[in-house]
């Protein structure tokens, strides 16, 4: 009973956290699902967003400028992975690992130190909520609205001629090429957009908790993937709208489940193992049922 009480008490905080990670999950969904490019870069672009945002804030810039700088840095990280893939002809997974490893050093360089405290600096919450900036529910409302806007923007984008061509790249390379779609260019944009979202998540996390650390968001890729898979099990992935709702719904449910597990005595240090096993099981389940794997690879 005590454990349940502890869990219920944490529901709002967990919800706030999950909405931040929802941006990372959206950013993971785009390369994995839209482009069929298993991109691991977000493990590096998420802390990159936090570090860039913190460094720019600490330099005295406006929070919007700092957040925009984080988004731009994430976009560039995604582009880097795409360019390594195209020009060095390196396997998609390896490209992501190369870039995220490099980003660890870059993140420390950006901050000039392994972490930056942000107490006393303005942030987007203060900007939008004024005196109510420390109220968890107001922060939840703000991030919920932001997530809804992001989904709407992506929904619109993926249904334009450009967005449909991008989906074609993920659905069939041969078809996309034969129909004149520049696969390299669309992959570049897709990975850029995905990692821009991951970096946005990182910058919001830094601003929400008041500090940035180079190790922040460790494991965000697998958590995000777990959220995407869980979300798809709940809302499906047959339409563009469902594809976009899945990461958000999945992140919300995933972090509540994790919070409950922790309240009922799961060792926090065992969490990564449990998540990894969960993702593995969810990946293998369709294969056991004779269907194709949910993480598609390009030929």
């Amino acid at each position: 009973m005590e454990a349940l009480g502890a869990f219920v008490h944490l529901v709002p905080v967990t919800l706030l956290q999950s909405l931040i990670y929802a941006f990372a999950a959206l950013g993971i969904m785009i390369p994995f699902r839209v482009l069929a490019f298993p991109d691991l870069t977000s493990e590096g672009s998420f802390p990159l967003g936090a570090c860039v945002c913190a460094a720019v804030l600490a330099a005295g810039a406006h929070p919007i400028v700092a957040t925009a700088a984080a988004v731009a840095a994430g976009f560039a990280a995604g582009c880097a992975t795409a360019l390594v893939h195209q020009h060095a002809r390196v396997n998609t997974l390896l490209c992501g690992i190369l870039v995220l490893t490099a980003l660890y050093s870059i993140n420390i360089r950006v901050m000039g130190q392994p972490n930056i405290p942000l107490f006393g600096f303005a942030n987007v919450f203060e900007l939008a909520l004024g005196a109510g900036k420390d109220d968890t529910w107001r922060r939840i409302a703000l991030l919920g609205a932001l997530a809804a806007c992001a989904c709407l923007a992506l929904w619109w984008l993926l249904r334009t001629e450009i967005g449909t061509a991008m989906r074609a790249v993920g659905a069939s390379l041969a078809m996309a090429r034969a129909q004149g779609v520049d696969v390299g260019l669309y992959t570049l944009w897709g990975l850029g957009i995905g990692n821009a979202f991951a970096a946005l998540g990182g910058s919001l996390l830094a601003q929400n908790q008041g500090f940035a650390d180079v190790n922040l968001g460790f494991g965000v890729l697998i958590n995000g993937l777990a959220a995407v898979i869980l979300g798809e099990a709940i809302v499906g992935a047959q339409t563009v709208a469902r594809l976009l709702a899945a990461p958000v719904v999945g992140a919300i449910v995933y972090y509540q489940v994790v919070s409950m597990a922790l309240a009922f005595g799961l060792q926090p240090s065992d969490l990564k193992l449990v998540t990894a096993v969960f993702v593995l099981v969810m990946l293998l389940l369709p294969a056991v049922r004779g269907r194709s794997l949910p993480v598609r690879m390009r030929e």
Partner: protein
Amino acid sequence: MLEVRGLGKVFHPGTAAERVALRGIDLAVAPGDFAVVIGDNGAGKSTLLNAVAGDFAVETGAVLIDGRDVTGLPAHRRARWVARVFQDPALGAAGAMSIEENLAVAARRGCRRRFRAALGREGRARDRTLLARFGLGLEERLRTRVDLLSGGQRQALALAMAVVRRPDVLLLDEHTAALDPRTAGLVMDATVAVVGDAGLTTLMVTHNMQHAIRFGNRLLMMRQGRIALDVSGPAKAALTVEGLIERFHLADDKLLLQA
């Protein structure tokens, strides 16, 4: 108008696996010509079509479309002029997308893609009219995902995608070979109808001798990377399956079986 000059292609040059696939092909296909390409396995038919489409760089020679040298352009840039239907029904259309989404992607082939809704009433009307010609009922299923379609339906869709925006050159590489005879017949009829109506400049590879005799106004036979026979007009019309086999000693089992 498609022109191929001295086209040579070697796969894996300088290695033990070296293969000369094209040995200096010269070919001019006049506007509106429907040329059927036959020849035994490994003769270089697919390589010729793929070279025209721009799948790989060639060692020698040039490809010209309407007088424009496109030899240095990658496949996606040549798609502005060249449309193709593959042998494998899985390749022509994206399975995870709907019929209308596939056609929407194809409809902008060679055009600048815009931040504008891909699907709309106009496009739908265009798709219905186009698909109705195939007699497979696809026009009623615009929102169906392509991976729910049969091989024949997918090939019909691939053909519709190839012609939804008029191509200067249409390449068909055994596009009915993976289908059962009845469906192959339907897709072939649809092919002849759309190619004939629009007067498309077409290269069609086939192993089906009857199709080779019956369709097209020109017949090319390839052998070991060269064009061994080129007949058109009345001479092509006068060809018979027996005559063809006899005259040119087509010893290929596959050809004999299908004839």
